[in-house]
């Protein structure tokens, strides 16, 4: 529990870009594939947003290790840390 709590506290938000053309045929819908990819690196991480038009992918909170692990999964184009923008 302590390890999991530590991992959660280290988590940052990432935007995960997926290559939809690489989706295994076993998935009926891309959201299931996204979910499965995320579950493969973290039991507790949840999808914040699923993006359908602006990108193919989703956002989530991950530890740096989880982010690295996810980036190495098939069908993942990039795992980019969230950026903060400001009004001009």
């Amino acid at each position: 529990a302590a390890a999991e709590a530590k991992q959660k506290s280290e988590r940052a938000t990432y935007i995960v870009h997926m290559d939809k053309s690489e989706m295994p045929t076993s998935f009926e819908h891309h959201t299931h594939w996204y979910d499965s990819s995320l579950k493969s690196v973290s039991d507790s991480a949840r999808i914040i947003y699923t993006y359908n038009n602006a990108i193919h992918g989703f956002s989530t909170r991950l530890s740096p290790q989880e982010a690295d692990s996810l980036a190495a999964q098939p069908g993942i184009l990039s795992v980019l840390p969230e950026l903060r923008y400001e009004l001009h």
Partner: protein
Amino acid sequence: TTRTPEFLGLGQNADLIPESDSASDVVIGVLDTGAWPESKSFDDSGLGPVPDSWKGACETGTNFTSSSCNKKLIGARYFYNGYEATLGPIDTSKESKSPRDDDGHGTHTSTTAAGSVVERASLFDYAEGNARGMATRARVAAYKVCWIGGCFSTDILAAIDKAIEDGVNVMSMSLGGGTSDFYRDSVAIGAFAAMEKGILISCSAGNAGPSSYSLSNVAPWITTVGAGTLDRDFPAYASIGNGQNYSGVSLYRGSELPGKLLPLIYAANASNSTNGNLCMMGTLTPDKVRGKIVLCDRGVNPRVQKGAVVKAAGGAGMVLSNTAANGEELVADAHLLPATSVGQNSGDAIKKYISTESDPTVTILFEGTKVGVKPSPVVAAFSSRGPNSITPNILKPDLIAPGVNILAGWSGAVGPTGLATDPRRVEFNIISGTSMSCPHVSGLAALLKGAHPDWSPAAIRSALMTTAYVQYKDGQNLLDIATGKESTPFDHGAGHVDPVKALNPGLVYDLTADDYLSFLCALNYTAQQINSVARRKFDCDASKKYSVNDLNYPSFAVNIETSRIGSGSGGFTVVKHTRTLTNVAAKGDYMVSITTMSPAVKISVEPQMLSFSEVNEKKSYTVTFTVSSMPSDENSFGRLEWSDGKHIVASPIAISWS
């Protein structure tokens, strides 16, 4: 806004601007701090039903119901999941968990773009007039992505995602982050998808000027907007004890100063802090400032906060002095106490007076609103500048538009200074930034979209750029307030927007999504990086030679790496750019003309004449730049114009040696 419609020629040329159904079918999505739906600028009188193509929604939440929307504000959504994931739950005692704008910025930008006409609008009687957005018949959809803690890329991307689905035609984003490659930049990536759907994306260039390489939002599929001044000012003179008057500006309205000179003190002499000159919170010694007018230096903390600090310490008024960072640029504020902002030269003179006079005194004379100020526009000092640090061969900003002392709608939740201690509430506020110039262009793009529904985003941007002006009516070149000298394409891009001319540009430089993909190939993006931006596999053709220079952009930037020429004085580089023009007018024979400012650059165009006989006909030409070696950090500028005698299709040229 007041004054900008007249300044842009929209008031005098109302009959040229389409008020047809197609104009009211245009939807501008504004990603910002939300909207204050009770603003009179969102009055929907005279507007027909919401366009059939609209698939958006009016989301409910704190103090915001589905009836908050109408036929002007047709959509309102809010995106907070990314914000809460990082910063924890939104404190609803401080901000509305809904599309409601508690900040004012989003109401200001959205009403600038497409606000309805409101008669006799003003801020404390300053800038009074009929306020209107640039596209009065266009519809607004507000996407709240910015909160007290900032604007998070996950939320921005979610809003872009939804805005595309909802069916906006123009997307206005007055925000930015640091500069990063396009495949890492959520705004650039989201904008690419929007562009592919025919949506024009207008973004602010940033307020990091006058430093070079200070631009945000430089992707070539984004229209990047810098800021210029209007011909309007709000003079408030600092009249000092030796009889000298120094020009300043102010939007102060309230209790007047006594009709006599008051003691004047420099903040640095009224503080124990090393940065006491800046009037930061808690740095002024009340015993030293009580009853006096305090001179504070601009910088670090917000200008209006300096006034609040002086007031809290018992000061009677404030003179706010620019430093070298701002030069002579004067930005007016609705201060909480009698105050005026003066340029660096005046500030230095007043400081000298303070240091040499045993009992320095001053008063402030408020003169209200003055119009017809010349020269105008001038490039705002704060407006971010090129060169483009990501792709130096794409000239940015694209153009400038009004962004200084702009009056537009405001939130009822906050005072005009935005300070928590400001109890005043106003329907309109006057603020400055490239945030304000961006929605001007968004609204003008909506006007063009209404007039030419079949034009692509690139064609609309081209029309706005190639008709922009770089000279005042007397023939003198536009000035940069940061230097007092002529501005350059790195400051003003193609120039200042001229919407009336943009309606009929003659020729346009069009672009498709595939052109941008070739551009990414030219940047040597990997397949993965291209896929991240374009959401699909795209294989660059190994046998094809891609060149950034061939992106059909309405401007020219040539970046010469001096190390590649060699250190010898006789070296030169030949760079070719190819462009294709599309005819959007009647037939015409266009001749080219070129102006250059440096003998180090020779420019030739082939062919020198292009004849168009029908609409949508395309003709290509090649520009050859023969560039001599120069020391690094040198720049040279020019202009290429095609004209058939009726239209002038102009492109800026920027040559830089790095």
